[in-house]
């Protein structure tokens, strides 16, 4: 079956203060100190009134769509949403993001960038894997090597492009040093991506034994159907987790998920269809969780393929969009208007760039100047994530006003050989901060560069050198002006039409406490932060 709506296997990262301050967790503004040591409260800085004292016990049943026979369980990669849900039961990262998209130390005591091309990781003491083995530097070395080994084809490899096996050095039992091949300020954020979990030395994916540092131990797993995870009595955060068991069931259909929730056969579900929101709200024992994330569904114009080689055409297309209407029609209102720029939560995001509005007259005149009046263009899309097909159709309708005919092609085999080679297409991304997003989609070596940015000559051609410069800055304050310049180039000359940021909408039984709206990519508050910050009332 096709991928389920809003399946967003993307990473999420955030940096709100100087990297050094934040990650050292000492003397940092607001967050660092109190979170360097694990406490009984959640790792979220905004732990707003979680009602009552957490009670222990119970079997938490999660209903997820998007899986099938190809379900996997791997601490360091995912393909579908159930894979995400399962990874989070057992595996954790050195640093984690909270609901405000701020990074905190987790398995690590500190993660510091000493030099532009060197990072140091210091582990906390006394953390054990579920098989009793103590977490040491050897495990971190093995974990990183496994991720960057291209033969493994793991999701996080692209983010560690600056790290080679020879650069990973164990200094002592709890310290690892990373010597990069070039300056890379993004490493800390990569270490916080949920799919870069820390695994024990010698680890391999399911069906081999799954031992992680997380709250639960895998008891049974039938791909495409159900997995059962039991409480890890050895979990390093004392007092947690609260559930005795977590059961994750694959669902083929969203309606069946909602029915299960209503009948009391599930405690939470991912990706509630917008049409069912009122049904859930009307039900006394159920609640809806709306998270305003930085996820986006861009229309991608390849800047080196006609007709988009002319920037006037690109600008015209960006002006044709009625963004508010897009939010209403594609997302049923569950989203925020965007400005053709990504990474809204990045501290360096340039909010001063004026919000683009629809301007049909200007669009028409630009097209006329470019000799493209009344043009026709093909737009390719697929059912990859909720909204991808609707975005294309709504855009096609809006384009008519400017005299442009858009032929929408819904390709079932979209992520096939034509992907990334199309002049005009739709894609999807999750929440991500600026520099990691650039690494994944806006430079020639990025794995998903739909727009073929940056241009080889003319305005924007210095983007790559600006990026290198940004990577070399240790302080956010020094990065910001460079990032502003990069964003200005993308704003004026780039190939993305980004009409909105979409929300994540989930549903759950009110018997479960601890869910909070989250800015990150994962549903249900990062699956209850690995099912450790949620409990039955």
């Amino acid at each position, binding site marked *: 079956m096709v991928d389920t709506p809003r399946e967003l296997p993307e990473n999420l990262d955030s940096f709100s203060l100087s990297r050094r301050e934040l990650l050292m967790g000492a003397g940092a503004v607001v967050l660092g100190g109190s979170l360097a040591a694990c406490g009984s409260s959640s790792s979220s800085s905004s732990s707003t009134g979680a009602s009552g004292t957490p009670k222990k016990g119970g079997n938490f049943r999660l209903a997820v769509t998007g899986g*099938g026979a190809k379900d996997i369980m791997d601490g360091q990669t995912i393909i579908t949403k159930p894979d995400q849900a399962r990874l989070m039961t057992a595996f954790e990262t050195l640093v984690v993001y909270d609901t405000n998209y701020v990074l905190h130390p987790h398995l690590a005591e500190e993660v510091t960038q000493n030099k532009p091309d060197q990072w140091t990781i210091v582990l906390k003491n006394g953390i054990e894997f579920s098989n009793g083995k103590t977490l040491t530097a050897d495990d971190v070395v093995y974990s990183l090597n496994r991720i960057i080994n291209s033969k493994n084809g793991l999701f996080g490899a692209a983010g560690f492009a600056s790290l080679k096996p020879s650069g990973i050095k164990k200094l002592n039992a709890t310290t690892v040093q990373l010597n990069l091949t070039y300056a890379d300020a993004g490493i800390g954020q990569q270490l916080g991506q949920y799919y870069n979990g820390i695994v024990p030395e010698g680890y391999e994916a399911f069906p081999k034994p799954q031992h992680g540092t997380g709250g639960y131990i895998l008891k049974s797993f039938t791909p495409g159907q*159900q997995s059962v995870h039991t409480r890890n009595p050895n979990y390093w955060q004392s007092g947690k987790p609260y559930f005795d068991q977590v059961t994750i069931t694959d669902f083929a259909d969203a309606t069946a998920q909602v029915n299960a929730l209503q009948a009391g056969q599930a405690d939470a579900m991912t990706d509630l269809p917008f049409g069912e929101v009122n049904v859930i709200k009307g039900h006394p024992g159920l609640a809806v969780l709306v998270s305003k994330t930085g996820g986006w569904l861009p229309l991608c114009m390849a800047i080196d393929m006609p007709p988009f080689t002319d920037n006037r055409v690109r600008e015209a297309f960006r002006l044709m969009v009625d963004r508010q209407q897009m939010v209403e029609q594609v997302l049923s209102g569950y989203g925020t208007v965007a400005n053709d720029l990504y990474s809204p939560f990045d501290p360096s995001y340039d909010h001063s760039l004026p919000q683009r509005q629809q301007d049909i007259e200007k669009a028409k005149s630009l097209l006329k100047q470019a000799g493209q009046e009344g043009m026709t263009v093909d737009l390719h899309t697929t059912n*990859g994530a909720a909204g991808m097909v609707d975005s294309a159709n709504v855009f096609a309708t809006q384009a008519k006003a400017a005299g442009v005919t858009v032929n929408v092609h819904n390709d079932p085999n979209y992520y096939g*050989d034509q992907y990334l080679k199309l002049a005009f297409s739709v894609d999807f991304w999750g929440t991500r901060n600026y520099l990691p997003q650039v690494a994944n989609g806006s430079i020639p070596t990025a*794995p998903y560069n739909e727009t073929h940015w940056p241009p080889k000559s003319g305005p924007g051609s210095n983007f790559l050198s600006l990026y290198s410069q940004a990577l070399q800055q240790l302080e956010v304050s020094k990065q910001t002006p460079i990032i502003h310049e990069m964003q200005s180039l993308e704003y004026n000359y780039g190939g993305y039409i980004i009409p909105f940021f979409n929300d994540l909408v989930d549903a759950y039984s009110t018997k479960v406490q601890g869910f909070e709206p989250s800015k990150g990519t994962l549903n249900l508050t990062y699956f209850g932060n690995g099912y450790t910050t949620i409990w039955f009332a």
Partner: protein
Amino acid sequence: MHSGGIWGFILRRTLLGLLVLAIVSILVFAATQALPGDPARAILGRSATPQSLAALRAKLNLGQPVLQQYWNWVTGLLHGDLGNSLANQEPVSTYLRPLLINSAFLVFLSGIISIPLAIAIGVWGAVRRDKAFDVGSSLITMLLAAVPEFVVGIILVVLFATVVVQWLPAVTQVPPGGRPWDDMTGMVLPTATLVIAVTPYVARIMRASMIEVLESDYVEMARLKGLQENTVILRHALPNALGPTFQVIALNLAYLAGGVIIVEYVFNYPGIGGALVGGVTNRDLPVVQALAMLVAAFYVALNLMADIATILVTPRMRTTL
């Protein structure tokens, strides 16, 4: 009657059935090959980087020529080996077996309830023609025949599981390693949906066939002989009315095998329907082939049994074998 007659018939039909299966296997293979994209891309989806694709392709042995793959599969099948699923590298038989048992149980349960029920309704309606029961049941069967299965399923869920009352589960949960009969409450609504889907058709055919038989000469003769009405209906009319009905029954049982997939979606029932859809999406040829052969074999077997049953109740036909 020559005993060679009916056994010879069965032999001939079985061989024909095997030929049909062979043709089906070729067609399914060709159709799956014609689908764009290869299994590695289909499985990895968007997360397919050149490295992960290469790694998976090597693992799945996709480099072999198409005919070679087909031949490998056929020889494997003849040895009882259905190959490995491309999506999760498990043996297809291991992967499909529990799902098959689940689906087969659902079809079986629906069949043994719906067919006798439909026959009873049809016969009673014909015997009490144009009276209250007949008029009422005709109306209801026509209504239910018009409603699509998934609508029936959803209405049942709303009535009994979520909105009106909460007596029954809305989704059928068969934990891995478990069996659907471990929790029969979970079987009620899916079975009811399929029964409602199938009964109307069989009941109406049964009624029509029975009405025709009740008007025939030999039934009138039986009555004139002074036989009890019950004997006339059950011993003389019914067996003759059943003959034509067997074909429809076979058709509807076969329909059940396909209807299962809709029910599986509505109730999240872990059966072969989801496995088939997933198999096609993943271009998982071994899984698709295995399921196609299974369903085709089921159809062929059902047709054969229907023909045999028809012959058995129609002595006249046995002499022409």
